[in-house]
């Protein structure tokens, strides 16, 4: 006897019935998020302490012309090999506010899935280019501004392009600087000083797949890191600008994805961020397209608490904010005051740093 495809369908559908209750998992997710935040807070504290101590050590080094002691950071040193950098880090190229120095398409031969830029620096999710039989693997890359991040200098001490670097399975105890991705014994990561006082971090997201599932991970991370070179700075660009924003609002972060969506975060004092997302597709919920229910400044729109959606010719824009902090009237005022570029003509787009007039 042979099984049929219908037998297989029936078996798989039957499996649904044993799924655990979502509430139980929801609670676990909340707990996991809280733990991660706690790790992040601890890391920031540790990093700040390291920065202060490192500054003291540097001053002592300059004054006394002696080798700084990695153990002087107060961290538990797991350095297996001490090899101070022989060449100085490159001076950091001036980067405009909300400016990229990394490609949004391809970095070191890897596909850029998403990239964001803010005052901390740049963060990128990379995807190894899929080949005929290879599985894609994710990596996260951070390029921090000077002084934003300090590694604890644990792990294997080595060099990237002649600059100070550390590689280890957990070189960042208590989590990574933004709590992401998961730190753990399976996540090889590499930190290197890519410019004066400025560090980059590269960490494999999935570590149980080639090429990050064994000893090759070390060489692969080093190979990728050596190929990461900041480019000429360029402004993040947005297909709109504002005629009105809440008082005190400032552009704090721009995130864009390989699918063409670009999201601006407006920080407004003590409130939660206001998000403005532009994308070439159409908004959907549960795979069903939404229908405009009104008109705003000549554009079809959906107005509801927390989200205003505007339909333009080749894209849509959503202005969203916590309804407890932003009234429908205020969000509508923001959306109605916007002027738009031509989606298909990037020369008409606006510099992110200049969209608030």
């Amino acid at each position, binding site marked *: 006897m042979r099984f049929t495809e219908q037998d297989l369908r029936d078996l798989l559908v039957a*499996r649904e019935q044993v*799924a*655990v209750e979502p509430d139980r998992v929801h609670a676990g997710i909340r707990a996991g998020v809280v733990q991660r935040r706690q790790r992040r807070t601890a890391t920031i504290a540790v990093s700040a302490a390291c920065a202060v101590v490192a500054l003291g050590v540097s001053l002592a080094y300059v004054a006394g012309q002696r080798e700084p002691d990695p153990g002087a950071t107060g961290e538990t040193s797991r350095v297996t090999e001490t090899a101070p950098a022989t060449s100085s880090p490159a001076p950091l190229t001036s980067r405009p506010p909300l400016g990229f120095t990394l490609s949004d398409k391809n970095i070191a031969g890897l596909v850029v899935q998403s990239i964001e830029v803010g005052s901390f620096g740049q963060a990128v999710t990379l995807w190894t280019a899929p080949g005929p039989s290879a599985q894609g693997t994710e990596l996260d890359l951070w390029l921090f501004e000077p002084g934003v991040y300090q590694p604890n200098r644990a792990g294997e001490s080595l060099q990237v392009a002649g600059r100070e670097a550390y590689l280890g399975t957990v070189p960042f105890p208590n989590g990574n600087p933004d709590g992401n991705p*998961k730190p753990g014994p*399976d996540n090889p990561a590499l930190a290197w000083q890519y410019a004066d006082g400025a560090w980059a971090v590269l960490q494999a997201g999935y570590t149980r797949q080639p090429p990050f*599932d064994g000893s090759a991970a070390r060489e692969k991370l080093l190979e990728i890191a050596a190929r990461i070179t900041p480019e000429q700075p360029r402004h993040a660009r947005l297909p709109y600008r504002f005629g009105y924003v809440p008082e005190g609002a400032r552009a704090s972060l721009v995130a864009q*994805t390989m699918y063409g969506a670009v*999201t601006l975060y407006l920080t407004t004092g003590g409130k939660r961020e206001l998000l403005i997302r532009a994308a070439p597709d159409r908004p959907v919920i549960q795979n069903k397209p939404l229908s405009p229910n009104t008109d705003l400044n000549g554009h079809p729109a959906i107005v509801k608490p927390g989200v205003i959606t505007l339909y333009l010719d080749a894209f849509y824009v959503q202005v969203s904010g916590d309804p407890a902090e932003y009234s429908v009237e205020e969000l509508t005022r923001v959306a109605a005051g916007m002027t738009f570029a031509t989606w298909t003509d990037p020369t008409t787009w606006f510099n992110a740093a200049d969209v608030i007039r």
Partner: protein
Amino acid sequence: MTFEEFVRARLPALLRFATVLTGDRGLAEDVVQEVLVRAHGRWRRLSGMAAPDLYVRRMIVNEFISWRRRWGRVVPVETVAPVRPDTPDHAWVHAERQELAWRLARLPRRQQTVLVLRYYEDRTDAEIAELLGCRPATVRGYAARALAALRTDRRSTVLAGEKP
């Protein structure tokens, strides 16, 4: 859409998907929880994507494929395939399903994943290829090998147990 809204809306479907994918409710719970906690950390970027749900499913697939049996967990057959009450011959159908489930659980994980995406999610080979980060032809190869294994293995077993 905030992360909380996403979880509220999509968690039940993601759990069902993970349970069907893994065949193990405990493992599905672990995988989904791990993936969503990680997704929270990168939500700013994920929420800007056209289809965050698809991206999270890809994370679940990757997590399942690469999940090391850290706690010695194996895919248990007993959690799958409850028998429908209106089936005329419970014992026979149950045995058949258990056999199929047993065979399925022993396939390489990529092959299992392809079968779940094709026969449970009804996704096209192109969609599956995008989720797995490979070519559609590779997907077809996985599916063909998996289906062949499910069928020929069973036949071999039956033949081996037959009396002359």
